[in-house]
């Protein structure tokens, strides 16, 4: 039992931290630190900076261009980046699709797509959910029919995040409607978004921003080899993909950054002449949150240390639940911290343009929107109710 990081881990952390501090453009860092919206170019620029350093795809095996890091290193890398205000990776290509390509992609697919994913030249989106298939993904209705050497796709996808920025999509579609179980007749496809018959319609979320979309497919024709792996095996690939990167799901680094921000803001807000952070009620709430986060941080480290070794395997569900609850809690306390200053809706503040003349304190303009938007973290990626169902099953209930 030894909780200290080994020396090589410490020097690795120093190296990563120094790199981010040197290379991360200040304007991007500033947006992340203050909860402002990133533009497409921000993500691409940062991905290219990482790529130049060989760190663009930390989770990829060395043979596909990854840095060959241990799980602990990957965890530390992600956490330091997040703490220092780097944009999060766009997960769809490199974290979700790539493992499927490693496993069942053809050599041609691997050679064509992987390098372009690594630089964000190809910005992938995920075409899974549908209006009638959310938690119950297996009930999806989008159809793909092979006609000659083309697949013809018809249907509608929903919650296709970043499709407005994307170049490509990976998509689940039903290829065998007669399969005995709904999961069994599904295949996975990848192709560009810029093919005829695709319409992307924005879904504006309650923070007033454009994060996600509906995507309509009307007689969309893609080549026969746009399929990944074998036909009707798409469900297995999707499961592989949804189990991606167990250690980043807790978002420990991001929550640490947010907690630091909360303390800073609550240290500046005054209540009857005393900093809010020093009033016992608020202080205790912040302390309780910090302790939750310490516990989560250690749980993730324990999960990493135990990986592969007869681990029960359900820690990922646990850290997803706790991690998402903590993410929400920080945003709740941030809104509480600024009080009435959270009320103005300052769209300019969300996009960094309003900093010259903010309505309230310059840190307050994004907080309500961030609180609203963060309600989603207990919903997406398998709602916390679904996570608890999975955990109950693993307990034999």
């Amino acid at each position: 039992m030894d909780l200290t990081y080994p020396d090589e881990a410490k020097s690795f952390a120093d190296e990563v931290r120094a790199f981010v501090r040197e290379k991360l453009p200040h304007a991007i860092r500033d947006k992340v630190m203050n909860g402002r919206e990133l533009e497409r170019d921000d993500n691409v620029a940062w991905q290219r900076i990482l790529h130049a350093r060989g760190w663009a795809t930390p989770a990829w095996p060395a043979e596909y261009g990854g840095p060959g890091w241990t799980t602990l290193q990957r965890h530390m890398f992600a956490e330091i980046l997040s703490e220092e205000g780097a944009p999060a990776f766009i997960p769809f290509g490199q974290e979700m699709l790539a493992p499927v390509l490693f496993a069942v992609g053809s050599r041609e697919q691997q050679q064509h797509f992987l390098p372009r994913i690594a630089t964000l030249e190809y910005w992938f989106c995920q075409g899974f959910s549908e209006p009638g298939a959310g938690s119950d993904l297996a009930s999806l209705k989008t159809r793909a029919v092979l006609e000659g050497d083309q697949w013809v796709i018809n249907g509608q996808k929903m919650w296709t995040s970043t499709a407005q920025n994307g170049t490509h999509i990976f998509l689940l579609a039903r290829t065998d409607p007669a399969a005995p179980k709904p999961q069994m007749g599904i295949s996975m496809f990848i192709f560009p978004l810029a093919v005829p018959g695709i319409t992307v319609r924005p879904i504006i979320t309650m923070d007033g921003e454009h994060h996600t979309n509906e995507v309509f497919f009307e007689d969309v024709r893609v080549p026969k080899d746009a399929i990944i792996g074998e036909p009707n095996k798409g469900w297995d690939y999707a499961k592989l993909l949804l189990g991606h990167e167990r250690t980043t799901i807790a978002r420990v680094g991001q929550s640490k950054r947010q907690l630091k921000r909360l303390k800073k803001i609550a240290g500046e807000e005054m209540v009857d002449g005393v900093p809010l952070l020093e009033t016992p009620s608020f202080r205790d709430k912040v302390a309780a949150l910090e302790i939750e986060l310490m516990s989560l941080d250690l749980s993730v480290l324990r999960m990493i240390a135990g990986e592969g070794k007869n681990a029960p395997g359900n820690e990922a569900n646990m850290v997803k639940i706790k991690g998402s609850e903590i993410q929400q809690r920080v945003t709740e306390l941030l809104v509480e911290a600024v009080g009435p200053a959270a009320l103005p809706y300052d769209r300019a503040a969300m996009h960094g343009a309003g900093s010259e003349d903010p309505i309230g304190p310059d840190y307050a303009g994004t907080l309500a929107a961030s609180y609203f938007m963060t309600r989603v973290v207990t919903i997406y990626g398998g709602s916390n109710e679904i996570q608890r169902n999975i955990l109950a099953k693993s307990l034999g209930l």
Partner: protein
Amino acid sequence: MDFALTETQHLLQDTANRLVRERYGFEERKKILASPAGSSPELWASFAELGLLGIEIAERFGGSEGGFHDLAVVLDAFGRGLVAEPFVPTVVMGAGLISRAGSEAQKAAILPGVAAGTLKLALAYGERRSRYSLNHVETTAKADGDFYVIDGQKSVVLGGDAADQLIVSARTAGKATDPDGISLFLVERGAAGVAIRGYPTVDGTRAAEVTLTGVRVAKTALLGSEDQGLGLVDYAVDRGIAAMCNEALGVMAALNELTLEYLKTRVQFGRPIGKFQVLQHRMVDMEMALEQAKSMAILAAAHVKDGDPRSRAKAISAAKVQIGKSGQVVGRGAIQLHGGIGMTEEYIAAHFFKRLTAIEICFGDIDHHLARFARS
């Protein structure tokens, strides 16, 4: 003891509900909110026609001299419809304060206009550094002959961008946080030195930052006694709280109905999601939160005019705490039970949730009112 609605209240309820249903659907509301003013003169005129703006105003000023419980049923209906007009600032807080503290001349000058829908009010009491403390007033008013000269900045003034007249708290004596030395003034929107920066709030209602630079008002603009304005602000804010508590009932009731309906109709895994016990119990908790809120909103309405300020403070703060908690249970619960669709701007659930969030913040959050309750 009687919790039933009077005949008047039934009538008001029907009137307000019908108005909302016929004139303020989700799409109409969206259009109004997207307009430059963010509010609807036509709707406001209808409020006046239907007598909703003068419910509490004395008959001699064109009102119907009703009680706060009469207002409460209208607020409930407005909550259900997410009415974003400045009803609380003008009718509940502004006119309520004038009725209580105004001189006969002030009443005669203002109340008929409110009742007729031609005059809007806003109470400019908060400041950038005041948070929820009513006694934290840095804005100053200096006597200068027959005038006062007001300087300062007022922050997040609810309804401030639509107001024709502002009721401004300013310090005529003492230090920034002294309870004594605060006075209230009626300030014309168009007076020299008044700058109003209006904006929408996160829930779609409107507020403003108000800057006062050497604003000269006549001595007759003083509302109530000099230096003794804190009690009046406290009264007006307590009215605002009681109003929003009752509005929140409508918001929560509508959101619960919407969520319950969603649970019954949304099918996943081959059955309505409302068949899952965990979702059932969460829905039950949301219904119970509404019931708890209902009891306390009634209590708040009953205590608005309580002659004992401590007893009033206790009831009002208790209600605000309960509304805040219930709002969280109902609002967050509804979004979670809806899943993705609840996150979108084009579905009304999110707007109910945002209004509950704003109500939780307005006039002091849960912690603020727990402390006030315990002190009172």
